[in-house]
Each structure stands twice: as structure tokens, then as C-alpha cells.
């Protein structure tokens, strides 16, 4: 059975949002999304309402007589943030990259544990001397002589090609 049916008042939406707000002691301010609202969005440049709604006497006169500061004041009445302000970048990327690197570093801790508790001993075929002999034997056999391994060895100068 739907939980909202069990709590019958809430299920019938008989408790309005404002009552819930009052119950919270008006800590939570809920927006009525049915009303025109103000937004700072660059893809919606002229919002449905002004930021602040009053106009003083001087601003009801013709605007060409106003000083620059008064014109800016008028702008701030109609708009909250300018385009430059609403589009400003943040330093969020530093937190993102720093946290990502932290977790990549944490992965290294897991590798330390794995090497210690899971891996067995490194086989003797990885010893430095064995690898050196193995390398010469591969070159003597001409392993991948066209584009691969032996192709990178200079048989005349007896050294790896530069």
C-alpha cells in the first residue's frame, strides 16, 4: 500500500506547503514555482520580473538626466548580477583535481597491500643477469627482426639503435 495513503493527510495533500513551513519554524523558504521569478542566466537574459521592484522619484523622471552612478543603480534594481558576474569562473576545479589525485594516491596504498599480502616471490627469470642473457639469446635468434625487437638492435655496432 502506498505509504502516502497510510499517512492519510499527507497522502491527500491536505497539508499545504505553508503549514509545513510554519511547522519548521520558517527555517525552510519554499519557492512557489507557479509565480514569475527572477533568474541570473545567460540563456534567459531578460527575466520575468525585476530583481527589486521599487523606483524612487528621481528615477521616474526622464533617464537621460541621470548620472552614471544613478544609471548603474537603476541597472541593479532591475538585475541582480551582470553577465560578467553571473558567468564568472570558480576555483572548483582545484578541489576536483585535488580530490581525484587523492583517490589515485589511495589506489597506490592498495597496491602496497597487494604486493605484500597477495603476490608471491618474483620469479628468478627476472633477475638482472638472466634478463641480460635472455636478451642476447633473443637477439641471436633474431626475434621480430623486421619491425619489432631485433629490428631495434644494430648488429654492426653491437648496440641498440638510437
Amino acid at each position, binding site marked *: 500500500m502506498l505509504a502516502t495513503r497510510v499517512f492519510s493527510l499527507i497522502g491527500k495533500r491536505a497539508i499545504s506547503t505553508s503549514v509545513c513551513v510554519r511547522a519548521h519554524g520558517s527555517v525552510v523558504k519554499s519557492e512557489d514555482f507557479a509565480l514569475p521569478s527572477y533568474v541570473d542566466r545567460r540563456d534567459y537574459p531578460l527575466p520575468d520580473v525585476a530583481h527589486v521592484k521599487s523606483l524612487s522619484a528621481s528615477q521616474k523622471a526622464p533617464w537621460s538626466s541621470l548620472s*552614471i*552612478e544613478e544609471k*548603474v543603480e537603476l541597472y*541593479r534594481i532591475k538585475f541582480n548580477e551582470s553577465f560578467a*558576474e553571473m558567468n564568472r569562473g*570558480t*576555483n*572548483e*576545479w*582545484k*578541489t576536483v*583535481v*585535488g*580530490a*581525484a*589525485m*587523492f583517490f*589515485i*594516491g589511495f589506489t*597506490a*596504498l592498495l*597496491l*602496497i597491500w597487494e*604486493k*605484500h599480502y597477495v*603476490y608471491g616471490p*618474483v620469479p628468478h627469470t*627476472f633477475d638482472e*643477469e638472466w*634478463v*641480460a*642473457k*635472455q*636478451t*642476447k*639469446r633473443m*637477439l641471436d635468434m633474431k626475434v621480430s627482426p623486421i619491425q619489432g*625487437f631485433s629490428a*631495434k638492435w644494430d648488429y654492426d655496432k653491437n648496440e*641498440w639503435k638510437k
Partner: protein
Amino acid sequence: VARQSHQKQTPDFYDKYGNAVLASGATFCVAVWAYVVTQTGIEWSLSPVGRVTPKEWRDQ
């Protein structure tokens, strides 16, 4: 035109801690990976090309 910013933007979490998070995260990451790569004895099996000097293998 001298524009007055109409409100001082108070620093947010990223302004206050972004640099610290970035620096400490990067330092921790580099340090622990440097340890893993060099000190744990993990065999990375790097290519011998350009690195290993071949050694005679036939019994004399």
C-alpha cells in the same frame, strides 16, 4: 567608468580550500606512487630495448 561592485563576493569553499586540496592531493599522489614504483619490489617488466646490455648465455 568606475564600476562599484554592488556586493562583495564572499569567498566560497573553493576559494578558501581549493589550493590546499590541490597541493596536498597532488603531493600525496606523487609521493605514494613514487614509493610503489621504486621501493615495493614490484616487477614492472620494462622492455630491455635501449636499457639492457646483452650478456653471453652459451656455456663455454
